[in-house]
């Protein structure tokens, strides 16, 4: 654990340590002592046991960890799909860990763009309509929705297939529709859960190129994955183990350490 702390800068630690205080605007995500337990038929499973993370705007972060490490739970918390038992979660300057269901829905709509492993497109709706969906819940008028959705599809080079249904699109195209949907509301973070888990390696690298380019355009990207070569596309890699942050390093440090120990994940 000692070497894991090496990657965490003093500044980052300071942000996390200032419990109760709103972080300065450059920090898009700050979690302080996040814990989450589940009651599994009388047995308490402690999925997260105090997770401290601080992410700057425009960072490209991968969250890794073996199964059971709590990375899905952390993703759900970061994605505002779930709330912690204890600890604080600040997203884009708002304390979301104590918000009501409807307030969280609002935050998911405005601040978070989800990309799922299984794409999760509505099968009966066209690509365009799928991309419009977050704007429907944002209450935008139809004409504006359509314009924004077309823009988003153009950003992922799918404007020529916008009237196709998901089953008329390839896996890579479906994931790009999902990315367009995630981007359409200009979210604070793009939150991807195993975005290449259902794709072949060539399509995976295409999708990674899309993420790379979005990151270069200034989009904050958080990606949850268990594949080291996918995680390697991120600038920063956080490894969870047993519900706590085991390491939090720059990509090159992570790679060097992997090389040194000779052990993959």
């Amino acid at each position, binding site marked *: 654990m000692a070497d894991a702390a090496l990657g965490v800068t003093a500044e980052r630690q300071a942000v996390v340590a200032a419990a109760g205080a709103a972080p300065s605007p450059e920090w898009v995500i700050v979690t302080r002592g996040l814990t989450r337990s589940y009651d599994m038929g009388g047995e308490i499973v402690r999925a997260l046991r105090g997770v401290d993370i601080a992410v700057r705007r425009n960072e490209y972060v991968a969250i890794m960890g073996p199964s059971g490490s709590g990375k899905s739970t952390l993703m759900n918390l970061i*994605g505002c799909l*779930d709330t912690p038992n204890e600890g604080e979660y600040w997203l884009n300057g708002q304390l979301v860990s104590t918000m009501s269901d409807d307030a969280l*829905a609002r935050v998911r709509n405005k601040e978070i763009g989800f990309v799922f492993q299984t794409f*999760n497109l509505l099968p009966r709706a066209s690509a365009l309509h799928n991309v419009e969906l977050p704007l429907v*819940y944002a209450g935008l008028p139809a004409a504006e929705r359509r314009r924004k959705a077309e823009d988003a599809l153009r950003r992922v080079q799918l404007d020529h297939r916008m009237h196709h249904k998901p089953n008329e699109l390839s896996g890579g195209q479906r994931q790009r529709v999902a990315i367009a949907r995630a981007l359409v509301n200009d979210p604070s973070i793009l939150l991807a859960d195993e975005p290449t888990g259902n794709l072949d390696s060539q399509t995976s690298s295409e999708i990674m190129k899309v993420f790379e380019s979005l990151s270069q355009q200034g989009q904050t990207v958080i990606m949850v994955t268990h594949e080291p070569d996918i995680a390697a596309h991120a600038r920063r890699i956080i490894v969870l183990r047993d519900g706590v942050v085991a390491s939090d390093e720059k990509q090159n440090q992570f790679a060097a350490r992997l090389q040194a120990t000779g052990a993959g994940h």
Partner: protein
Amino acid sequence: MGILEAVRLALATLVTQKLKSAFTLLGVCIGVMFLIAVVSIVEGMGRYMERDLVGKLIGVNVFEVRRAPSINIGDVDPAVWEEYRRRPRLFEDDVAPVVEAMPAGTRWSVYSADVLSVDSRYSRPRRTTVYAVDGEYFEIRNLGVARGRRFAPQEITNGDNVIILGVDLVERLFPGLDPVGRTLRIGGVPYTVVGIAEPQGSAFGISFDNFAIAPYRAPVHRLLNRQPRVIDAIQVQAMNETQLTEAMELARTVMRTRHKLRPGQPDNFSLQTNDTALEFWNRLKGYLVLAGIALPAIGLVVGAIVIMNIMLVAVAERTREIGVRKALGARRRDILSQFLVEAATLSTVGAGIGIGLGYALAQAIAAFTPLPTSVAPWSVAVAVALGAGVGVVSGVYPASRAARLDPVAALRQE
């Protein structure tokens, strides 16, 4: 999310799941169909009653002075019957004072009627309603003569043995023959047929064309009322409703004086208008409308249960979709309204189809049965409201289950 958006979404779901939707719609569809059809029968009968049937019993702006009402509504108390029985009879001598008191422009007639046996050389004896009439009976009843002629004034004055028949009776007494000029017998007394009345039609299988009409002073009137000089009714037709009220009050005063009633004593005679007959129908209509609502209600309840089930299945099947929608920012109320609107749309579409089928059924009933039908606009409005209402009511539980789903669990659903 706007309501239009939700309706569009619901219609899209409906189109993509045609078969399932069809089954879902069935209950509401059948319920509404029967609602429309049954109400159309009630309405059609109502119009028929008001326009035709009651007009044949008692005309518009007509009242009858009688000993007791001939049209009684519901169960009449035995005490009331007893009171009717004790009333004095109406006599020929009552006619002149009543008629003289009537305002200018009114018509009057007098009649007695009973079912008697009538026979001719060409047929066995037939039973028919025989009327003995005086005054402008044919004008008040608006009864025309299709063949032959009406009674001449002197025939009425003299009480000649002449008679006018309804078409049904003509066929029975004179099969295949022209009856005008031929003779029939009532109580052994011969009468010459001078005319045949215009066909009056029938209602509910009862013919209005089985009758014979003779002048009042003809011998037959002694067979109609066993006591001498007794008559059944004096009919008065006013020119309009205002005059009708006035004429009725005048007749009441005359009759009270003739019966020597003191102020405060109740009338011991009856003034009957077509309101009395209509009131009878209105009461019957109340029961029919109740039946017309109870039967479709069963269909609608079944429809509601089916919709609730289908919606619960839909929520289970679309758990993942609900999870995705929540992840993208749908609030509880968005999911709730989506499923509510979907249920309401489904069931309103069902109601719409039911309205069409009900209309068709009403047309078919009118075409193939003697029942007249008329689709009431209000029943269409009720059907649409019921359709939407059933959808909302049956959608509430499934929709609230959907709205309460935990997004994490919903997204994990395969």
